[in-house]
């Protein structure tokens, strides 16, 4: 039925699209060019929203056609050039009461299904799992709240390379809608999302899920979703949250429950492996390689591709990167309060923090030749600074 409605809608809009210059007939879940309507989506809720949207749109169209026909008929039939003598009437109580009362009942007819859909969206029955979604300037983090075992927490940031955004290199088909770590959920399970923010207000929006909810610093909002079809669903931050508001997409990967369990297993494995890696010492080359990747993900947006600075201070030739190592680690881990420099201690693991510090001290012509190992960061954190 939804598909059907969608095709009808596309048919209705066809002349316009044809005039403008292109048309694609296939109806697929992936976003397509020249899309003119809301996605039907992949959840019960998104379908209900689509239905109510089409209903209100349809009623509006019918009323619109009637009203505009009457207007254009009047303009045509009573044009002055036809030599028509104007009438002099200026009110008619019956008609006026009628067009006050009738719209009221039409509105009642709209309010009823809208209320039903609203109640459906607010279905608070127990969920199978909880994910804490936190909006940061400008990325998301997902923390899977688990009763037994450690919570799984990771950051999810834009994966589109800077060259595609600023340079002339071609843009891939998921331009600006791709992340390094998607949020993974199992198909058919009811997932409760707890939404909050780290700094300013963000808004978590995935059209195919029919979910948009504000993430407010200090407070927690909730939303629910249950997706039956496996696949990738893409969305974006919907509330202006500062400079890179347009660059913090959301990707939800829906897998089979079995796949989900093995993904959870992998994540736990990863956590253990990272713990082991932390105990190792790395060579300068290895740290530089890891550090570069971290830099591009976490630092580049503010400090520039060549450490030239931007929102943040320049790294190239910086007194921090070329000064005391302890102070450098302190700034990476704890940030600089009152500035845009965040505390990365919670966002990067010790190895990543070590690698990026090493990278900053040796890249961009800083060439300090010093290494920072994960254990240094660990000791720094443990020792309250020393």
């Amino acid at each position, binding site marked *: 039925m939804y598909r059907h409605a969608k095709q009808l809608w596309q048919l209705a809009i066809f002349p316009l699209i044809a005039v403008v210059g292109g048309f694609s007939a296939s109806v697929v879940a992936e976003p397509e060019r020249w899309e003119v309507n809301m996605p039907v989506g992949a959840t019960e809720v998104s379908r209900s929203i689509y239905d109510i949207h089409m209903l209100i749109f349809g009623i509006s169209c019918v009323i619109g056609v009637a009203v505009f026909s009457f207007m254009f008929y009047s303009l045509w039939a009573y044009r002055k050039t036809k030599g028509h003598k104007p009438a002099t009437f200026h009110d008619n109580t019956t008609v006026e009461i009628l067009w006050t009362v009738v719209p009221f009942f039409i509105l009642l007819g709209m309010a009823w299904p809208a209320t039903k859909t609203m109640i459906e969206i607010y279905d*608070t029955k127990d969920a199978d799992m*909880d994910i804490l979604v936190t909006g940061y300037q400008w990325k998301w983090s997902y923390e899977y709240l688990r009763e037994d075992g450690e*919570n799984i927490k990771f950051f999810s940031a834009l994966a589109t390379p800077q060259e595609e955004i600023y340079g002339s290199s071609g843009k891939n088909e998921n331009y600006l809608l791709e992340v390094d770590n998607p949020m993974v959920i199992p198909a058919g399970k009811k997932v409760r999302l707890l939404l909050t923010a780290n700094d300013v207000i963000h808004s978590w929006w995935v059209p195919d899920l029919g979910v948009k909810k504000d993430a*407010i*610093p*200090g407070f*927690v909002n909730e939303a629910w979703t249950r997706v039956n079809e496996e696949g990738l669903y893409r969305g974006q931050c919907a509330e202006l949250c500062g400079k890179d508001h347009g660059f913090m997409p959301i990707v939800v990967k829906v897998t089979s429950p079995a796949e989900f369990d093995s993904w959870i297993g992998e994540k736990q494995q990863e956590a253990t492996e990272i713990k082991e890696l932390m105990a190792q010492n790395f060579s300068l080359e290895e740290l530089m390689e890891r550090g570069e990747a971290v830099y591009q993900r976490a630092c580049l947006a503010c400090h520039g591709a060549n450490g030239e600075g931007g929102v943040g201070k320049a790294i190239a030739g910086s007194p921090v990167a070329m000064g005391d190592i302890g102070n450098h680690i302190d700034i990476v881990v704890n940030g600089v*309060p009152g500035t845009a420099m965040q*505390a990365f201690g919670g966002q990067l693991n010790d190895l990543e923090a070590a690698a990026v510090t090493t990278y900053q001290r040796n890249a961009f012509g800083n060439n300090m030749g010093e290494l920072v190992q994960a254990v240094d960061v660990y000791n720094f954190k443990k020792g309250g600074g020393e």
Partner: protein
Amino acid sequence: MTATSHKKGSVKATVSKLLLVVVVMFAFVFVVMVPLYNVLCDVLGINGKTGSRYEAVEAKIDTERTIKVQFVARNNDAMPWGFAPADKVLRVHPGELRSTAFIASNPAQQDMVAQAIPSIVPSRAAAYFNKTECFCFNQQPLKAGEEADLPLQFVIDQALPEDIHTITLSYTLFDISERVAAAH
């Protein structure tokens, strides 16, 4: 001309009434809207805000029902503290007084002061989640490198709506060191 001067008087009256409206509306924001919003938040649990200290009353424990209470700890912005719940989940009967704690540590090189802001989901449950003791009632100073257990004691009202089985209590830790320093 007499007509005009007569009007001058009523212009004055109109203007003074309108100026009064302006003053009243400006005051309305501070005197009515802000307090009214806070009252509505308490009553309706908007944003999951919880009330202030609750005086424990002897109440029957409703052993028929078990509520899963989840604890979440977060840091706001550049707050570097370690902050985690001692218990991630407690199963509680309505009417039963329970205690738990959050563990906070200050890894920074300077002394800091924090304020924890609670938020409950579902927000409808906020009005039924009564805290007899909570670290969020006060500011939390920690010296450089210090660690502390922050106590929380609560009781869930038996009148909690039947359809609520899970309550999530989140604390967000804000760094207020500068504000406190500025106030002194």
